């Protein structure tokens, strides 16, 4: 025995910590028993740290044991496997073992009792050839197997296999320092060889040369078993470490083994070390060599509240209550159900919650296990908590700041270096539940960070929206200016003025276009009708450009100006707006002359590029049709379609705030002055939500009406 406990090299120590009453012998009397499969298994989609998995089966599907039923979403995520064969009963929210007692999405699996394995494993079992596998393959398979840290934190294991820097030392954590929990102890006794093999495999994957397995010296059987298993492997050292809580914290264990302290908010990887739980190493071995995903784990069912405490190898998804029944059921006086140990565990809401990858222990606690909480007294600043804190924090200061909701200060006192071991609360003479204060502060800070991120995203989206609206407004302005120029040019052209030849000036080009249209009235309608289809439009544009090139020296080509704005109509909102404006113009020109159908078509063209405008146009058209049923509503329909686009203008918030006012004003205005038939624009624009936009639209409409009425050229050009 003494030989076992003599370390071959110097051990170090960590600060603080406590000697506790371990009560581990409750559950170490019997070997691990394979628990039967319950009739129904509940598999939470988030059994690991990181993003929840995404289901890839449907209720009613038949699945085999080991089949992937939910895929990993994102990098820090893991798949979920069916832990037996059967039918998916539901995918729904079920209570999960979480301190909040909340429910989370789970896949509910009805076992068919056959426990049939997947005929062909999802990845090949490597058998004895595992040394031939590349680290990448091992990593992928460890991920596909859904392996998370089995020590309780459930961090996806494959991530630690991708360290990105050289690793000197693999630390396997078999300390299991928390009272009551014995699952790792028994696993080390019974599957020592698998653990050592797993260590070899992980060393191979990490390309590391040395492994230390730290085991608290209160587990002599496990130490002996592992020493025997590792006799042939010189790279793996079994190191008994002193029994002192929280020796099993990875930072504390690394400090004990190597004397190196992990920097504040740093990782063990910063020191070239990677820690794994011993059970995780065995799971990695199973996954690579036997092609077996993580579908079960060893769970300690213990406490004075259960008749026969012992360890079970339970399928993930087994309800707590089912395992407790296997262990002889509850004993009178049970007062709480805890997942994890008495120090770091948390109560769960009921025994219907399932075993997950993080469930190392189910503690059925009576008053004998955990004294009922005593009323907290004021802090007397005795400083006991600082004496025992293994992270060398100042628990008292953290407490004051957390209590006063001064989270920034708590962070400044390194709140996030707290491992929530509970030593401070254990020694507190005032019985202050210190850890809960720290947990509150941590989760509150995370919430604030989340809200901050959300606010930033909202600001960004709002700014992007404003920029977009401004851009659209500008485009409309430009379109208006161009249209005006065209009209003016058309008038001038009729007066017989000389026109400039090919030019880059938009105004001049517009003048030319208007002239050209007048000269060759059949060409523009061709491009207009092509406007429906972006492809046709593009083709037309290309043709037009070609024609322009050919006739560059001579008189301007008929389609010269129509082409450039329409060419880019698909991508550029400015061009789109120009096109829309053109269409609107055409519509206006045709509306007074033609009947309902073409006007409708044109309005469709005008709005066709912009779904919002189209939607508004549709709504407005319906409304106009309803209100002006008696009158000849056709022109107003078209007009409303055109002008409605202007309701996109302006600031959305201002518009929304003013919406009530505006609509009220509109209603009253409509009541006072019903839209006369000669001015159908007024009726349609009164629907516009923004008073400014409405005014602009009205002005535009009036002007357009005047111009259309005054000059026949407009209509001709449109045709």
């Amino acid at each position, binding site marked *: 025995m003494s030989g076992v406990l003599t370390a071959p090299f110097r051990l170090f120590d960590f600060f603080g910590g406590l000697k506790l009453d371990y009560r581990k012998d409750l559950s170490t009397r019997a070997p691990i028993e394979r628990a039967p499969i319950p009739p129904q298994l509940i598999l939470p989609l*988030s059994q690991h740290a990181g993003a929840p998995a995404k289901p890839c089966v449907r209720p009613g599907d038949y699945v085999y044991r080991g089949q992937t039923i939910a895929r990993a979403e994102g990098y820090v995520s893991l798949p979920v496997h069916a832990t037996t064969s059967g039918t998916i009963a539901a995918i729904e929210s079920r209570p*999960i073992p*979480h*301190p*909040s007692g*909340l429910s*989370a999405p789970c896949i509910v699996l009805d076992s068919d009792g056959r426990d049939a394995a997947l005929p062909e494993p999802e990845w090949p079992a490597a058998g004895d050839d595992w040394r031939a596998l590349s680290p990448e393959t091992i990593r992928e398979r460890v991920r596909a197997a859904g392996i998370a840290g089995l020590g309780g934190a459930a961090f996806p294991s494959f991530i630690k296999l991708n360290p990105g820097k050289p690793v000197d030392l693999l630390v396997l954590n078999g300390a299991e320092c928390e009272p009551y929990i014995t699952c790792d102890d028994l696993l080390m006794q019974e599957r020592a060889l698998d653990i050592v093999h797993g260590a070899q495999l992980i060393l191979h994957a990490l390309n590391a040369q040395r492994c230390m397995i730290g085991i608290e010296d209160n587990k002599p059987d496990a130490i002996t078993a592992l020493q025997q298993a590792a006799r042939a492997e010189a790279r793996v050292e079994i190191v008994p470490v002193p029994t002192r809580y929280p020796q099993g914290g990875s930072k504390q264990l690394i400090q004990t083994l190597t004397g190196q302290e992990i920097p504040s908010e740093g990782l063990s990887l910063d020191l070239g070390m990677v820690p794994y739980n011993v059970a995780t190493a065995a799971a990695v071995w199973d996954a690579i060599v036997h092609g077996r995903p993580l579908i079960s784990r060893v769970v300690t069912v213990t406490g004075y509240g259960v008749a026969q405490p012992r360890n079970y190898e339970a399928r993930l998804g087994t309800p707590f209550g089912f395992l407790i029944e296997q262990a002889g059921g509850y004993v009178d006086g049970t007062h709480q159900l805890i997942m994890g140990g008495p120090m770091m565990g948390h109560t769960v809401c009921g025994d219907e919650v399932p075993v997950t990858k993080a469930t190392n222990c189910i503690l059925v606690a009576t008053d004998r296990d955990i004294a009922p909480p005593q009323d*907290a007294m004021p802090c007397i600043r005795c400083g006991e908590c600082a004496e025992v804190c293994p992270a060398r924090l100042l628990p008292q200061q953290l407490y004051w700041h*957390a*209590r006063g909701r001064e989270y920034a200060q708590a962070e400044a006192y390194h709140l996030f270096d707290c491992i929530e071991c509970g030593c401070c609360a254990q020694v507190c003479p005032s019985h*202050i*539940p210190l850890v*809960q*204060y720290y*947990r*509150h502060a*941590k*989760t*509150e800070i995370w*919430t604030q960070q*989340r*809200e901050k991120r*959300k*606010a*930033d*995203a*909202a*600001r960004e*989206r*709002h*700014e*992007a*929206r404003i920029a977009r609206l401004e851009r659209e407004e500008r485009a409309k302005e430009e379109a208006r200016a161009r249209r005006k120029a065209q009209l003016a040019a058309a008038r001038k052209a009729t007066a017989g003025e000389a026109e400039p030849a090919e030019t880059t000036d938009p105004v001049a080009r517009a003048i030319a276009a208007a002239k050209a249209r007048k000269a060759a009235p059949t060409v523009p309608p061709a491009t207009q009708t092509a406007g429906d289809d972006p492809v046709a439009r593009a083709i037309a544009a290309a043709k037009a450009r070609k024609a322009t090139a050919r006739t560059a020296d001579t008189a301007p080509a008929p389609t010269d100006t129509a082409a450039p704005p329409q060419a880019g109509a698909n991508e550029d909102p400015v061009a789109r707006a120009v096109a829309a404006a053109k269409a609107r113009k055409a519509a206006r020109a045709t509306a007074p002359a033609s009947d309902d159908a073409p006007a409708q078509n044109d309005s469709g063209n005008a709005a066709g590029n912009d*779904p*919002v405008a*189209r*939607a*508004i146009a*549709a*709504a407005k058209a319906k409304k106009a049709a309803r209100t002006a049923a008696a009158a000849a509503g056709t022109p107003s329909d078209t007009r409303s379609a055109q002008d409605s686009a202007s*309701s*996109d203008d302006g*600031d*959305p*918030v*201002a*518009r*929304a*705030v003013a*919406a*009530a006012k505006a609509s009220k004003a509109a209603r009253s205005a409509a009541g006072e002055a019903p839209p006369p038939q000669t001015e159908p624009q007024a009726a349609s624009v009164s629907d516009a*939500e923004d008073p400014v936009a409405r005014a602009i639209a009205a002005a535009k409409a009036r002007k357009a009406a005047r111009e259309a009425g005054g000059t026949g050229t407009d209509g001709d050009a449109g045709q």
Partner: protein
Amino acid sequence: MVSAIVALALLAAVFGLALGYASIRFRVEGDPLVDQIDHILPQTQCGQCGFAGCRPYATAIAAGEADINQCPPGGEDGVVKLAELLGVEPKPINPDNGVAKTEPTVAVIDENVCIGCTKCIQACPVDAILGAAQQMHTVIAAECTGCELCIEPCPVDCIDMRPVGATARTWVWPLPGDEREAEERQVA
């Protein structure tokens, strides 16, 4: 005497140059105060403050044209932070601007009732509503700020504000005192 004058003149020249350079080199564009205020505001863009969004309100506060207690979504915490930043006394939220929500909410569109009018899309200040004319609309819950600006424009009243329930991921451990207070409230 001369050497003293020369030395002082030299010092003055050196510091003057240094300051002049610094004022050009480290010049701050824009008004950092507006940015700081804007970062405290909750960015719901709801307009309850009477301004067309959070940034205009921040600008108004910085210019002294608006009070710090006009933002109900920011709540008392927001007012306290603004008061700290501006060195003024915190004050309760102005009831004229509305009441602070007790819990975050998100807009939900009843798809069966939605007629696809796009009015809510135009009202949404953060483009969190997805849809097209005559097509069903939906709210991107993750982007919704709960500003309620989409409620009024809806012609068929198919938009509801629903509380965002805590999930296991967003849940916050209660302060131990909170539990006691809650129990005391129950007893009372």
